Structures are given as structure tokens and as C-alpha cells.
């Protein structure tokens, strides 16, 4: 039994167990147990990975391969490199904390939540294009109900829009995947094997575009990001956490694991188009956030900006920038999860997310507020928190290009950090500082213990990465070597 499959089996088992009982206590027990176990296995996986890495120089570790559909060479092929491990850890942490942020939800919610987790983990461990795509869609569809049923505001519209846009992305992706498979000769769906094959240049062009945009929709690629503000604003807390924290990373991960890795020539040729788009996205998202009044909208636009940076860095196609991209995924995942979790805490008490209706919460709910400030600092890239490490790696890497085009874009992208400061501080100033706007808020209580667990765990991760980045950075950097080799072949 492969340890990676465990990552899919645990949420599946949790899901099945959930179907057996309905009581609140039972549900909580099962879910906390399940996701705790998941986190544990993710950590164990990371430890084993480091151990194994030291003795093996294979590109992928813990590889398992079972033939599934022989006619199309579809295998259930799993394996991880450092990047997947990092992403798995991120997902496990966010998934685990999300459970606590959704403490009062009922069984059905958690059932969908588990399904989401199955998709996410399956996606990150997959080496086979088909299974990867399958898990990708598994992860997307529960979102519809999670937002539609348990969301707030324009939830039905938002859920529909989100699902349709993401599915449209995956429709492009499907065409692209089929193209990759058949044009490379129709012999394998395994990514590692496909990377050894060559796709003719004429085909690479369109396949690259399809795959990149397909994944890019989920990675909030401008101008396909508009599902994000509405979706995030309407989703319940823990769904926003998981969605912005983990699901959006599926896009970035796919972009480089499939689009860049399998079609390096097209990546070189076409990167400029997408660099412009992502560059716009980075700055545009930041500007878009400045005047928003809904906390979640602010964060959603901020996600557009930050996730734009992920794709931006990936497209820079150099080792450092790509390392930065993965770090940024990690960092943004943790940070945005923290944000959403805290927005959830605030919203559940004040019943508003309009920053004009709030003020002085620092005095009323100090814990949540302090955490929010920390999250804000992480978001605007304060050293010692994860955001800084990621952004700096991206910028330094992006600047390694000698030509003006890449440099000017990099400089433009760096300007986003100022705008980020503007909207983060504006929010913090309006919501947490200042006099109490609504006297009813004086009676509100601070975060509950389960919400605290969620926040503290996320902050701990953010700080650990921020203070000691070289550990995780090293793993990512080494794991990117095959991708770089692939890129330099052409």
C-alpha cells in the first residue's frame, strides 16, 4: 500500500464514515479525526520524503503505478516530488484548520468538504494526466454546493458562475490533455514519460494555450479571474479558506507541471503573452482591492494579485522565479486561509463584512484582530512572515532576465507591494483600529477556541516559513531541477 494513496483514502474513509451518523458530536469527531490523520500522514510523508530524497535521485518518489484503462494507457500513477509534498502539506494544514473554522457546520457540509479534499490530494499526487484531470474536477464540483447551500449573499449566482467558469477552464484543459496524449504518439499519459516525448511545435502552440488558460482560470489568470471575487465573497468561511488557499494553487501547480513541463518550447515562445496578462493581473488585482468595501472582496482581489504573481513567476521560466512561484503558492495559501478564517470570525459576530460598518474591533476582539494584523503583514510582505520570502524570491528570480521586457514587467509587478500595503492598512485601519463604530459590537466576544486553533496553526506555519525559509525553499529548488532541465533542452 502506497503512502500516497493514503492521502486519498483517508478523506474517502472520512466521507464514508460521515454517511453513517448524523449527530453533531459524531460528525465533529470523525472530521477532526480524519483531517488530523490526514495532516499527520502529510507530515509523515514529508519526513519520509526528506529521508528518501537523501538516498534517491529519481525525479519522483513513492511512485506507484497501476494500469487502469489499457486502451488509452491510463494508469493510476502516483508519485511526488518536493513541490507536491509542499502542496500536500499546505492542503493538509489548510484542510485541517478549515475544519475548525467550520465547526458548527452539519454533516452534509463536511461530506462535500471531504470530497473536495479527495480531489485536492488526488490531484497533487497524480502523475497521470487523466487521473490528475479527474481529481481536478472532483475538487471543483463540490464547490457548487458548498457555496450554493452554505454561502451568503448572492450565493447561487456566485456558485454558478464559479463552477461554470472553472469548468470552462477544465473544458479547455480536457482538449489540451487529449492533444498532448495523441500528438505525443498516444503511448502514455504519464507526465514523466510524456516529458521524454516530443510534441511538434505547431501543436505545442495551441495545446500550451489551452492548458495554460485552462489551469489559469483556476489560478486567477487575468481576465479569467472574475469568478474569484463573487465566489469568495459568497462562500462560507472554511470553503473560502480551502478554495483560495488550496484550490487556486491547483491552477498554478498544473500550469507548470503540465503546461511548462510538457511543452517547454511553447512556453518559451508564448510566455510573453501570458506574462503581460499575469503582470496586469498582479497590479490590477491590487488596484482593484483598494476601494472595495467588503472584506472578502478585498481579499479576493488580493488573491488575484498574489496568485497572478504565482503565474507570473512560473512564466519567467527560471529556476529562482519558479521556486518563488511555489513559495508564493504556499505562502498565499496559508495567508489567505488565515485571512478568510478571521473574516469568518468577524463576520460570524458582526454579521457584516462591510468595512464601513465596523471599527475599533481591536479592543473588542483582540485575538482575532491581532491575527488579522499578522495576516495583513504577511500579505504585504513583511519579513519574518512567509509572504516576504516568496515575493522576494519571485522578484529576484524574475530580475535575472537580462532583457528589458522581463525587467520592466518585474518592476511593474513589484509596485504591487506598495498597493498591497495601501489596501491592507486601509482595511486594518478601518476595521480594527479607530473608535468603535457600532455600539452593538461592544458586546461581541472574541474568537472561540476552535477558531483560535485554526488561526494559530496557520500563523505558526506562516512564521516558520518566514523565519526559516531555507528548508522548504531547498526542497522546492531541488525538485525544480528536472523542470529546468526540460526547459533548457530547447
Amino acid at each position, binding site marked *: 500500500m502506497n503512502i500516497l494513496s493514503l492521502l486519498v483514502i483517508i478523506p474517502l474513509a472520512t466521507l464514508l464514515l460521515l454517511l453513517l451518523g448524523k449527530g453533531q458530536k459524531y460528525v465533529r469527531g470523525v472530521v477532526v479525526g480524519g483531517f488530523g490523520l490526514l495532516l499527520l500522514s502529510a507530515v509523515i510523508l514529508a519526513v519520509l520524503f526528506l529521508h528518501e530524497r537523501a538516498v534517491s535521485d529519481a525525479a519522483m518518489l513513492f511512485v506507484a503505478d497501476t494500469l487502469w484503462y489499457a486502451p488509452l494507457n491510463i494508469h493510476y500513477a502516483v508519485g511526488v516530488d518536493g513541490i507536491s509534498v509542499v502542496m500536500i502539506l499546505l492542503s493538509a494544514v489548510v484542510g485541517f484548520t478549515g475544519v475548525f473554522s467550520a465547526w458548527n457546520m452539519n454533516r452534509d457540509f463536511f461530506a462535500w468538504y471531504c470530497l473536495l479534499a479527495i480531489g485536492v490530494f488526488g490531484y497533487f499526487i497524480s502523475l497521470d494526466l487523466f487521473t490528475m484531470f479527474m481529481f481536478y474536477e472532483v475538487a471543483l464540483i463540490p464547490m457548487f454546493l458548498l457555496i450554493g447551500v452554505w454561502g451568503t449573499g448572492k450565493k447561487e449566482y456566485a456558485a454558478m*458562475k464559479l463552477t461554470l467558469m472553472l469548468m470552462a477552464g477544465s473544458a479547455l484543459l480536457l482538449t489540451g490533455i487529449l492533444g498532448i496524449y495523441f500528438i505525443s504518439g498516444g503511448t502514455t499519459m504519464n507526465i514523466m514519460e510524456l516529458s521524454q516525448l516530443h510534441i511538434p511545435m505547431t501543436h505545442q502552440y495551441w495545446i500550451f494555450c489551452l492548458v495554460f488558460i485552462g489551469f489559469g482560470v483556476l489560478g486567477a489568470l487575468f481576465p479569467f479571474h*472574475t469568478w474569484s471575487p463573487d465566489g469568495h465573497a459568497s462562500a462560507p468561511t472554511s470553503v473560502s479558506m480551502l478554495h483560495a488557499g488550496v484550490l487556486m494553487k491547483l491552477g498554478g501547480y498544473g500550469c507548470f507541471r503540465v503546461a511548462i513541463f510538457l511543452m517547454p518550447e511553447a512556453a518559451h515562445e508564448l510566455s510573453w503573452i501570458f506574462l503581460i496578462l499575469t503582470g496586469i493581473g498582479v497590479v490590477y488585482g491590487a488596484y482593484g482591492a483598494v476601494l472595495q468595501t467588503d472584506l472578502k472582496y478585498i481579499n479576493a482581489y488580493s488573491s488575484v494579485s498574489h496568485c497572478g504573481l504565482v503565474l507570473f513567476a512560473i512564466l519567467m521560466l527560471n529556476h529562482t522565479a519558479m521556486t518563488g512561484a511555489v513559495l508564493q503558492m504556499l505562502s498565499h495559501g496559508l495567508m489567505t486561509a488565515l485571512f478568510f478564517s478571521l473574516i469568518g470570525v468577524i463576520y460570524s459576530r458582526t454579521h457584516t463584512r462591510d468595512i464601513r460598518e465596523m471599527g475599533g474591533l481591536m479592543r473588542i476582539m483582540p485575538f482575532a484582530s491581532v491575527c488579522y494584523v499578522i495576516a495583513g503583514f504577511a500579505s504585504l510582505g513583511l519579513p519574518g512572515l512567509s509572504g516576504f520570502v516568496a515575493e522576494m524570491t519571485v522578484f529576484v528570480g524574475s530580475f535575472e532576465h537580462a532583457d528589458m521586457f522581463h525587467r520592466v514587467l518585474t518592476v511593474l509587478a513589484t509596485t504591487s507591494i506598495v498597493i498591497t500595503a495601501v489596501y491592507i492598512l486601509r482595511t486594518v485601519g478601518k476595521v480594527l483600529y479607530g473608535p468603535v463604530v457600532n455600539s452593538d459590537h461592544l458586546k461581541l466576544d472574541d474568537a472561540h477556541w476552535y477558531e483560535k486553533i485554526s488561526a494559530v496553526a496557520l500563523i505558526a506555519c506562516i512564521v516558520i516559513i518566514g523565519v526559516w525559509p531555507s528548508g522548504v525553499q531547498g526542497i522546492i529548488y531541488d525538485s525544480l531541477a528536472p523542470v529546468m532541465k526540460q526547459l533548457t533542452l530547447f
Partner: protein
Amino acid sequence: MGFTVFIILIPLVMFLLLSFGSKWLRPRAAGVIGTLGMTIPALLSYYTAYRYFLADAYVWPVWGPINTFSMEWLRFSDNLSIEMGVMLDSISIMMLVVVTTVSLMVHIYSLGYMKGERGFQRYYALLSLFSFSMLGLVVATNIFQMYIFWELVGASSYLLIGFYYTRPEAVAASKKAFIVTRFADLGFLIGILILSYYTGTFDFNKIMDVEADLAVTTMAGSSFLGLSAATWAMALIFMGAAGKSAMFPLHIWLPDAMEGPTPVSALIHAATMVVAGVYLIARMFPVYLFAAPDVLTLITYVGLFTALFAALIAITQTDIKRVLAFSTISQIAYMMVALGVSGYGGDFGEGYTYSMFHLFTHAFFKALLFLGAGAVIHTIHSNEMEVMGGLRKYMPITHITFLIACLSISGIPPFSGFFSKDGILSAALRYEPFVFGVLLFTAGLTAFYMFRLYFRIFWGVDRQYEKPPHEAPKSMTIPLIVLAVLTCVTGFIPFSFYVSPDIRPYEVYIHWPVALSSIVVGGIGIFIAMWFYRKASDRPAHLAAKLSGFWKAAYHRFYIDDVWMFITKKIIFRGISGPVAWFDRHVVDGTMNVLGTGTLKTSEAIKGSQTGRVQTYAVVFVLSVMVITVLVLVL
């Protein structure tokens, strides 16, 4: 000297202890722990200075840098990585001493000043955080480490300015301070990116290795928009420095930052953080000098303008902390000018030396001024000069120490300010008489507004106070006294012996013509201030009325804030952000929605084709068959 790393780590530990322990610690205990915690780094710094300059002196005859600690923190690529370390050389040790001393004084002072304030523990925790960040900045071995701590001091400054977070002004001020400096830091960051790209390293020692001349050789070839890469890089780095050190036009945050508690103003916005910009330029001085001399000229004139500009504004302000804030801007600009006019080697490095010297002395007397002002505010509960007057009787210690500081900043011997200012003036004279003249005039203005302040607080109208003002408690007066003593004695340190751009000691003498002119100008300034403000009179009002246009403009800080407000609110918010948000919601999102509604509309439009009548169906059926047949036949 491996112990030096503890100078940095202890404040960090204190920060963690105080922030996590705030629930369990009583305020008083937190304060005492914080203060004790600060004592150790201070003592260690002194010991370091002693060892480096006096005891070991193993670096003689060159004050070379020694890295006492270094670890890799983040590796970007195979040859580029950020190290975290401790680099000791003369200016970093000088800064260590300054920072720890002032910080310690502020810690002690705050025990009295902040007593009973809500969030006392938080205050001490943040002070520790600031001390940590500042010390880390000072000892940075490489430019990226400096940037990291540079950001951290910015953040702690933000938190401390916004300490009274329920007051909207404080919140606005903290936000402004952070965003303005952040904007400047953007330049710093891009500068770092350019510099590190060409030199392939962040390390100060490598970049500044005069023999290897890395920066000059590697960046010579490339240019952008007509300026060389080195010029760009160094100019952008100066932008960062200008932001932190409140150079025109990025100075706008500093006066507002006075919304923070007064001890914080003393520590951060007078003595330590704001001079980080000067320190940065000094740190990279050889690179500026050799690779980007144009930028040094820029620095000179920006500094010169700022010095004069801030001094003019300071004359008109009525909020005592604002006066001090503009005075700080002006004095830092002095240091900048000094760096700008400096040369290299022997006497030519005078500007550099005295810039650092002024930084050193200014830290003490400006901290003293702020703390003195704090003592006044503490008892009067106001910042406005209008409600003060005649306080010398009530607060003798404060009065005396304040006077000492005022004399020092006015450049009256034998106080420390005289020595450092004199060196700067003579360096300026060597550079260009015009610069000298402006600086001299500014010196006179400085003396005038400082004594205006002094007289209006301690002399002037004898007011009747509802609650009679009282002398500050011991915990506040002791730091005042210590700093006053330092102000008196530090001027006699032979700075050129320790600090010079080529790290080789040299000797300088007081240039008496320059010194005399400075003393005379200072004296005139003091005299005029005395004439105006010694007693309550209508002379100031007359003058103000005569110069009303200028006076009003200066009072409103020459409307620079409004210009910035216009840029941010009108252009960035309304002009960019608003349209972007609108564009996103209506155009980008609108397009997506149109795709959706378009489908539905099409669906609605074509529904009529399904008439429900069999005969229509038959028509469609038969016609389709025909058409298909024809098409297939034809094609």
C-alpha cells in the same frame, strides 16, 4: 566576538516573551523586564565598542569590517543568497551604541511616561521588536539583510505610531508613515535587484571592495534611458533612504508620525530609525562615490533643499512635537548633505566622518529634546505651545536639560552639536560655497526655531495652570540627565580617528573661521528668538502678519501634504483604483456575464422555432433532407 549576536537576539526574545506573556505579566513587571532586557544589549554594545576600538584594536590601522556571525538564510540561486549575520565596523558599532543607549533611555523613560496606559505590555513588546529590528539593520552584513530589517523597523514604527489605535489621527498617521516609506522601499528593492544582478552578490564587503570595484566594472556597460545601471541602482537605493530619512518630497510622514507616544518619537523618529537612510548611504558610500557620483550630487541637493525647507516650516509650527519633527528632518538632511559633499581618503572624507558624527550627536540631543518635550506634554497634556509658558519654575531639570539640547543643536560650543555641525559646514565649504551658505543659513534658522520653542515653553507668558505643572518622575528625569551629560561630552570624541570612508583614521582640526561663523549665526538666531519670545509680546504676531503669505504656506508645510493627498486620493484612488474596480465588475466580469446571459437570450430567441406543430416539423425535416442532399452533392 561571537557574543555580538546576542545584542540582536535578546530584544527578539524580549519581544516574544512580552507579547506571549502579556496576559500573565502585570504592566509594571512587563516594563521592568523590558527595560532590564534592553540593558544587556546596551552593555554588550559598549563592550563591543570597547573591544573593537580600544582593547583589541587588532584591526589597526584599518577599521576593517569583521563578520562575527553569519548564516545562510535563503538561497535564491546557486550564487545568490541572503545571509543573516553580524558585521562589525566602526559605523555599525557606533550605531549599536546609539541605538542601544537611546533605546535603553526610552525604556526607562517610558516606565514613567506610559504608566497606567492601556496596552503597556504591548508597548514594551513593540519597543523590543523595534530594537531588534533596528539592531539587525545596523549590523547587516549584506544589503538584503538590511532590507529585511529595514522593512521590520518600518512595521514596528507603524505599530508604535498607531499605538493609540482608537484615535483616528494616530491610525491615519501610522498608515501614512508605512505607505510612504513602503513606496520608497520599492525603490530600494528595485535598486537591490539591479545591483545584485550585476554584481552577483548582496554582500556589502564584496560590493564595496574598492580594489575589485565590482559595481563599477560590472555595471559600466549597461544603461537604461541614458543613465548607467549603477546610477539607476544607486539612485533607487537612495529613494529608499530618502523615504526612511524623510527627505523631500518623501518627508510627509514624519511630522504626522508624532501621533505616536512621545518616547517612541524620541527613539524611532528622532534618534534611530530615521537616520537609517543616512546610515544606508554611508554604508554604500564607496559605491556611490565610484560608481554613481551623479547620485551623490543628487543627494547633496535634495538634502540641502530639505534642510532649508524643513527649517522654514519648523519656524511656524505651534505643535512642539511638530517643531521637533521638522527639526529632525532638517538635521538629517544635514547629514545627507554631508555625505553628498564628501570625498574619499584623508581630509576629503571629512563630510562622511562628520555626517556620522552628526548622526551620533544628533541622536542624543534630539532624543533629549523629545523626551524633554514628552515630560512637558506629560504634565500639560497638550502639544500646543499656546497653552505653555513659564514652565522653567515648575520643571527645573527638564528645563536645564532641554536648554542644553537646544544649545547643542544650535551649534554652540562646547556641546556636541557644535563639533559635528562644524565639520559638516567645513566639508560643505570645501565642496561648494553655495552649499555652505545655505547650510549656514539653515543653522541660523535652527537656532531660531529651537529657541523659539524653548522660550515659548519655559519662558514667555506666565500662565496660571488649573493643575500646577510638576516635575516629571525620577524614571523620566534620569534619562534626561543621562542624555544631557552625553550631549555635553560626546562632542569631544575624536571621530575622524574612528570613522572615515576609506576606513583609515585621519586627523582633523576645528576650522575656526567656519566654526566662528556658525557660532555667530547660531547666536544671532538665538538672540532673535529671545527678542521675540523671551517675554509675551506681539512681535511674533506682527512678523507673522507681515510675512502672512509665506507664514501661512510654511504653516501648512508648503502644501506638500496636499499634493500627496491629491496624488493618492484623486489620482490613485479615484483615478486608477476606482476605474479598475469598475472595469473589473462591468467590463471583465460583464463580458463573462454576457457570455452567460447571451446564451440564455439566444435560447429565448430561438425558442419559436419549436412551434409545437407537426407540420412545421415536417417542413424542417424534409427541407433539411433536401438541403443536406444538395449540399452533399455539390460539395
